[in-house]
């Protein structure tokens, strides 16, 4: 433990794990209530070509990656809706087609643009390579997520619960939806750094899925999901150090252990009643 904390590399990674884990955990409450994790998974895979293109054109900065990611996400989201209307296919099928195509396109671009050394980082994450700028970005995204969901909590929950009724009551439904969508993209961007685009969905779903089994309170769901996300990411990083496992995989494994513990606890409580 002392060695771990002595290493500046791991110190920075631990701070990153806490920040990224918290922001992902916090928004996972929304993802779970929205019942959209698989759509988000498709989205996270499809961001790759946008990020790669942005990196190739202007170099890797927080803004270039974000703009590239949002552009592709919007294009994919709108295309899936349009194609689902124009073909006999449902939106899930169209999303599956688009996201695998986008992901394959991203991998091809990484190869063609000779960015192979970036490949493993994008696919599996590299939390040990976080810079101070990355930490500030993660911190800012986390603060933004808490502020947005706290300030607009009422509207966001009403849109989730019954969007048509929310609209008739005066809630700006489309603004809320697009705003939360953009926020989810920003959080996903920070997730890529920790666990990569393949496992990103784990971090942005599992804490909420775990806590939702244990509470009916929306406030508790958001708060405890954030806390669990931070704890899980930190423990996963520690585990990767001790057991010599890839950090991204360790982080997600710890989250699934938490999920299983919550599930067993729920069964035991029900059994005792």
């Amino acid at each position, binding site marked *: 433990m002392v060695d771990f904390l002595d290493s500046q590399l791991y110190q920075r990674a631990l701070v990153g794990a806490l920040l990224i884990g918290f922001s992902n955990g916090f928004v996972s409450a929304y993802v779970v209530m929205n019942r959209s994790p698989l759509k988000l998974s498709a989205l996270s895979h499809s961001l790759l070509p946008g990020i790669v293109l942005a990196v190739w054109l202007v170099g890797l900065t927080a803004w270039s990656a974000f703009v590239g990611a949002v552009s592709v996400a919007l294009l994919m989201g709108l295309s899936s809706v349009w194609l689902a209307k124009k073909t006999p296919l449902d939106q899930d099928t169209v999303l599956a087609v688009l996201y695998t195509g986008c992901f394959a396109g991203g991998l091809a671009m990484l190869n063609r643009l000779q960015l192979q050394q970036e490949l493993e980082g994008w696919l599996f994450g590299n939390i040990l390579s976080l810079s101070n700028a990355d930490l500030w970005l993660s911190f800012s995204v986390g603060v933004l997520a808490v502020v947005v969901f706290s300030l607009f909590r009422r509207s966001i929950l009403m849109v989730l619960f019954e969007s048509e009724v929310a609209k008739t*009551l005066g809630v700006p439904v489309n603004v809320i939806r697009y705003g939360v969508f953009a926020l989810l993209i920003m959080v996903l961007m920070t997730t890529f750094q920790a666990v990569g685009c393949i496992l990103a969905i784990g971090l942005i779903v599992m804490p909420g899925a775990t806590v939702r089994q244990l509470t009916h309170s929306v406030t508790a769901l958001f708060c405890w999901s954030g806390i669990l996300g931070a704890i899980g990411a930190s423990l996963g990083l520690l585990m990767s150090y001790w057991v010599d496992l890839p950090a991204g995989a360790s982080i997600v494994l710890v989250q699934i252990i938490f999920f299983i513990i919550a599930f067993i606890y729920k069964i035991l409580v029900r059994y005792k009643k």
Partner: protein
Amino acid sequence: MECCNHNHSGEHELVVKNLSVSYSAQVKAISNLNFSITCGHRLALLGANGAGKSSLIKALVGLIPVNKGLNQGEVLWRGEPLTKSTQEIAYLPQLDKHQTAVPFSVREVVAMGRYPYVGNTRNYSQHDKDEIDQALELMNLQNLAKRQIDELSGGQVQRAFIARAIAQKAHVLILDEPLNGLDVESRRQLIELMHTLSYRGHLVISSHHDLRTVHETFDKALVLNKEQVAFGDVAEVMKQEEVKQCLGIID
């Protein structure tokens, strides 16, 4: 808790003028509807599937913009376009439309009705809390206030949604197939509730499929077949031959 007393119910008039709703140049949902109705009534929207009931409901609650794009006509409430007083119109969609993954309590669902008054960031005042409590009491839900909405029966959920409309201080309640999926006792209770609401001065508009219960539930009827077939008192409307043909009633 009165909505509008009988002196004012005549001023609280919903007027639909030349309303047509089209989803595309080829798909016209409803054509040229013209009717008016005041508070204190219960209006049944009748017609086969695809007759335009849902499209009319969506136009009445503002989900389909009237007089925009291919849509034409006017919907006026108290002489003004409906969009100016949306908080006086409450929409109760079909029971399966709400997202059960959101862990709302009954009280939180009813509190949604106060959104037009508190917006997104204002705390609920004592007055808002009183309105919510009164709405829960009126719908006999005060003992269920802390329960999760997805733990309730269909009939109880409908009462929670009506309580939300009351907390909203809505004069007009527009319900989309409210009796679907309810057991016999819940249906009876909801029909009784609709009567109570109209006696208290609310205007209740509801799409309805069961022709056997039209007379006992409603006092006015609007029959649709992508256009207005008939409008008026239920007894008179249901006698008309073209209505019987439209609804498939065999004598």
